[in-house]
């Protein structure tokens, strides 16, 4: 039997890096869409936004986040909360994402 695992924010963010915004072609963590994570036992809640409120990919991305979280061994429950405040802007992107999108 496998020993129980420690769940921390880094592991959650690594998992979320598997989820891309297909229109932009960059993962949602480096894009700055993930505003926060909360770990309560085996449950993870992610607070995130989308690049634009009318984003037609929004539902797919949120579903993808949930799948990615449930793909972590120690996670039994996952919730995704979409928020619009503060609105996303390019200053929230990591340098790697800015490089990828030609902003640097």
């Amino acid at each position, binding site marked *: 039997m*496998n*020993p*129980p*695992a*420690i*769940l921390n924010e*880094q*592991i959650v963010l*690594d*998992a979320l890096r*598997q*989820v*891309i*915004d*297909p*229109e*932009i*072609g960059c993962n949602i963590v480096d894009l700055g869409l993930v505003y926060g994570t909360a770990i309560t036992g085996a449950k993870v809640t992610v607070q995130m936004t989308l*690049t*634009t409120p*009318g*984003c*037609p*990919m929004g*539902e*797919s*991305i949120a*579903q*993808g*986040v*949930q*799948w*990615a979280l449930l*793909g*972590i*061994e*120690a996670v039994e429950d996952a919730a995704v909360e979409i928020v619009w405040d503060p609105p*996303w*802007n*390019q200053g929230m992107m990591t340098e790697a994402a800015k490089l990828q*999108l*030609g*902003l640097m």
Partner: protein
Amino acid sequence: MLTGLLALTTGAVWMVIRPAMLASYHYNQYVIALTHLFVLGWICSIVMGAMYQLVPVALETKLYSEKLARWQFAFHFVGFIGMVWMFRTWNMKQVGHFGSLLTVGVGLFVFNIACTLRRVPKWNVTATAVTAALCWISLTVLAGLSIATGKCVAESFDGSETNVGVFIGALRPLAGLVSRFDAISAMHAHAHLGGIGLFTMLIVGVSYKLIPMFTLSEVQSQRRAGLSVALLNLGLAGSFVTILLSSPWKLAFALVTITALALYGWELRAILRARKRRTLDWGIRYFLTAVALLIPLSIMAVVLSWPGLQANPFLGQLENLYGFVGLMGVVTLAIIGMLYKIIPFLVWFGVYSKHIGRAQVPALADMYSPRLQMIGYWSFLVALVVISVGILCESEIVVRIGALCFTTCIALLLVNAGKILAHAVRPRITSLVAIRPLKPIFT
């Protein structure tokens, strides 16, 4: 979409085979057939199909009826092919019959989209523009049918008491009314209803939603955007009447339309300046180039609507060029640009959306070749310039060279469309890379 691409390819090859269509004055059966092949087969097929997909997305609602959309496609498909064929053989009676089928399809389309618009939770400038476009497409079709009626009722009426005979007899007053207008003016008025009322209206209205979405920006002035749509409606209403009556006032309404387009360009510039995504992909570049082509088109509109202009062969060719740049420059380039955004999105959504987060899926831009897209862009511009020169110089050989270049661009588009559609047949899904191993707890 496939119907539209097939019609575009057929039209491009037809231009190569018969360049005289563009190198000579446009009031002949072949040019009218080619125009309807492009307008109905290529542009309308794509626009209507895209509207069924995009209006619900752009306006955050659901399509009223997919079943009606399928019936509309059947009427549209049979109607436009029959019309193009009958225009080519100049059988106006059959044009009227196939045009009636097409009209049934347009009726279903307008009803379906209008019912969809009734569900829109938050009314905006895009919804207003789409509503206006529905009104203008209805008038365009009615005007076209009236022109066909005017041309064929006299020869069809035999005074018989059959139901058909009585129906044709009832159309005689309409035919009489239509025949009071100059035939070419009526055709130009009909063309402007469709070209500005449906296509330009949709380009303007829908781009107020899509360009901010694709460039991560937002409309900067709702007032300016709303005014541009309002003036476009006013300019078109006035242009239709003044073109039909060959009135010198058509210049005034051309200027109203140009003012509307200038406001649109101003707002688009503001949207782009505020964008969060700095690099513009080739799809957006196609679209923005199409919008930029509205400038030479507007200049030609001013020249051609100048009061007291005497008809001469050069002006005839300038009219050809005006129609060509409008349909094949502005509208076609805008559609190709948007297709590069819409087709990958639809295929991705259908194939990959359920796998995101569980497997590695491609981004939209990975589904086709940006290199082919870029070559297609430049070959399109070269084709546009060469064909334009050929039209003005009445040179068949120059038009043919340009048409060959145009066909190359279409071939590249088809290759890229094939690459995108191939994802629906053979999805490119790979396993996720290993997530960082979890540390065991040692107690």
